[in-house]
C-alpha cells in the first residue's frame, strides 16, 4: 500500500481536527494500519485556517508531516485559498459548496460537494458535518471500513448521538460513492 497523505483544513469550529483523529485512530486500532496525525496547533494559534495532517500506511512512518497531500479537504474559503496549491498533482481536492467558491483549477481531481447543506437538510445538526466529510473521504479513498469509524465514535460520544453520526457518515459515503479512484 502506498502511503496515503491527507490534509483536512477548515475553521476552528468545524471539527476537522477531530475528524482527522477519528480517521487515524480507526486505521490504527481497527484496521491494523500505521497512522500519524498532527496539526498546526493550539488555542494560542487561534484564528485563521486550522489544518490537520494524516498519514496512513502499512509501513513505518518517520517524517510525520504532509508536504504534498494526495487528499486535500478544504471546508472554508480561507483554508482553500491557503492550501489548494499544495495538493499533489493528480491528487484529490474536496471542498464544500456552501463555504468554498473554487477559483483557478488545481491540477487534481476536484470535488465540490454540498456536504454541509445535505447534513443540514437531512439531519439538521451542524456538529456532524465533519463526520459526513469523513464518509466522503473513506468512500473515495477506500482507505478503511465505515465500521472502523463507528467503533471509534462509540468510544468517544454518548450512545444517544451515535445514530446521528452513523447517518451523517452514510450521507458522506453516498456522496463519495462512484468517485473511488
Amino acid at each position: 500500500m502506498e502511503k496515503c497523505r491527507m490534509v483536512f483544513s477548515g475553521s476552528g469550529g468545524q471539527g476537522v481536527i477531530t475528524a482527522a483523529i477519528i480517521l487515524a485512530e480507526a486505521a490504527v486500532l481497527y484496521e491494523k494500519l500505521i497512522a500519524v496525525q498532527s496539526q498546526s496547533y493550539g488555542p494560542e494559534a487561534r484564528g485563521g485556517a486550522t489544518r490537520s495532517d494524516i498519514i496512513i500506511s502499512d509501513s513505518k512512518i518517520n517524517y510525520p508531516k504532509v508536504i504534498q497531500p494526495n487528499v486535500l479537504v478544504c471546508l472554508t474559503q480561507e483554508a482553500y485559498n491557503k492550501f489548494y496549491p499544495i495538493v499533489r498533482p493528480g491528487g484529490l481536492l474536496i471542498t464544500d459548496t456552501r463555504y468554498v467558491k473554487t477559483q483557478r483549477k488545481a491540477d487534481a481531481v476536484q470535488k465540490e460537494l454540498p456536504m454541509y447543506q445535505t447534513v443540514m437538510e437531512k439531519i439538521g445538526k451542524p456538529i456532524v458535518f465533519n463526520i459526513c466529510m469523513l464518509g466522503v473521504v473513506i468512500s473515495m479513498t477506500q482507505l478503511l471500513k465505515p465500521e472502523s469509524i463507528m467503533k471509534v465514535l462509540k468510544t468517544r460520544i454518548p450512545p444517544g448521538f451515535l445514530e446521528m453520526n452513523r447517518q451523517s457518515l452514510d450521507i458522506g459515503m453516498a456522496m463519495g460513492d462512484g468517485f473511488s479512484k
Partner: protein
Amino acid sequence: MSENVKFLQGNEVCVEAALYSGLDFFAGYPITPSTEIAEHMAVRLPQIGGKFLQMEDEIASMCAIIGASLTGHKVMTATSGPGFSLMQEALGYAIMTEIPCVIVNVQRGGPSTGLPTNVSQGDILQARWGAHGDHAIIAMTASNHQDVFETTIAAFNLAETYRTPVILLFDEVVGHMREKLVIPEKGGIPLVERLRTSVKKGVDYHPYLPREDGRLPMSDFGGVHRYNVTGLYHDMWGFPSNNPEVVQGLHRHLVDKIINHVNQIARYKEYYLEDAETILISYGSSARSALHVVENRRTRGERLGLLELNTLWPFPYQIVREKCANAKQIIVVEMNIGQILRAVKRAVEDPERVFLANRIDGVFINPDDIRNIIRFIQGKGA
C-alpha cells in the same frame, strides 16, 4: 482490539508512562505546548487515587512536587520554556537536596514568549546550565511514542537511582503528534522504586551518607526518622555546614554521581552505523526527519547512518566519539543554532568533519532541509 494498544498524543503518552512508573503526584501550571500533560493528569490521577494540583505558577509547582517527593511519592511537573526558566531556582534546590523528581519541558520557540505553538529544540543548554552554581543534570528526549514511553520510565528510574531531578526535553511535534502506543504489561519494563533506609527506628539515620554503591537511602517525611533538608551546604545529617571539607565533598558528590555514570545513564539508538560514511546525529522529533533521509538514501545504496541520542546530559562523549570514529562526515540535525553541535565537536576527533543541519524559523525540519546540506557537504551544490 487489545486494551493496551492506544492512539495518543505524545503528551498523553508521557502521562501514561509516568503512571506506569508509579507516579501518583503531579503539580503544574498550564502552558502551550505542554498543557495536555496537566490536563490528562487531571483526569487520570484521581482515578488511581493520586493527586493532581494546579498551582498558582511554575515556581509553586516545582516546589510542591519536591515536597511530595519527600513524603515518598514519585512526582512530576510539566512546562515549556518560560515556565522552565521560572523553575530554575527550585530545580537547583532539588539538585542540592537530592530529591528525586521528573520535570518535563515540551519545547517551543524561544527566546522569551517566542513562538508558543511552533516546534523548537532551543532549551537544551538551559537544561544543562539554567540553575545557578556548579551542578550536573540528567536530561533525556525521544522521537516517537514508544520511546517517549520508555524514556519517561527511564527518567523516573534514574531519578530514584541517583536521587536527582531528571529533565525530559520533548518538543511540540512529539508532544502534539498522535501515533500508536503499545503499553507493556505491568512488569514488562523494570521499575526502580524509592530506595528506603533499612536503619531501624531510634538508630541514627544519615540522609546524606552514600552507601558503598554510591546510592543514598531515603526515609519518608512523616516516617520514623526525623532529619533536616536544606539548600545550604550540609553534612550527612542534612544540617548546614560551611566546613570546607564538607562543602567540597558535597560539591563533588553532586557532580560526580552523575558524570561518573555517564555510560550507565546514556540511552541512544543506532541505525546503519556499521558501514556509514556519513553519520547523522539527532534527537527528538528532528531524528524522525533524519531517519527518513537515512532510510530512503539506503535504498539507493548510499552509506548513511543515524545516531539518535535519547540521553543528552550527561553528554555521552565517549560513545559519540567511538560511533563516529570512521565517519567521513558527521551532520548534527537539530532545531536550534547548534546546541548539541558544540558537544559533538568536543566529543569527536577532527571536529572539521562535523556539520550542522538545522532550522530556527519555527518550521519543523524536513528531509529536504537535510538532503540539501548533504548535497552541499558532498560538494554537489544546490
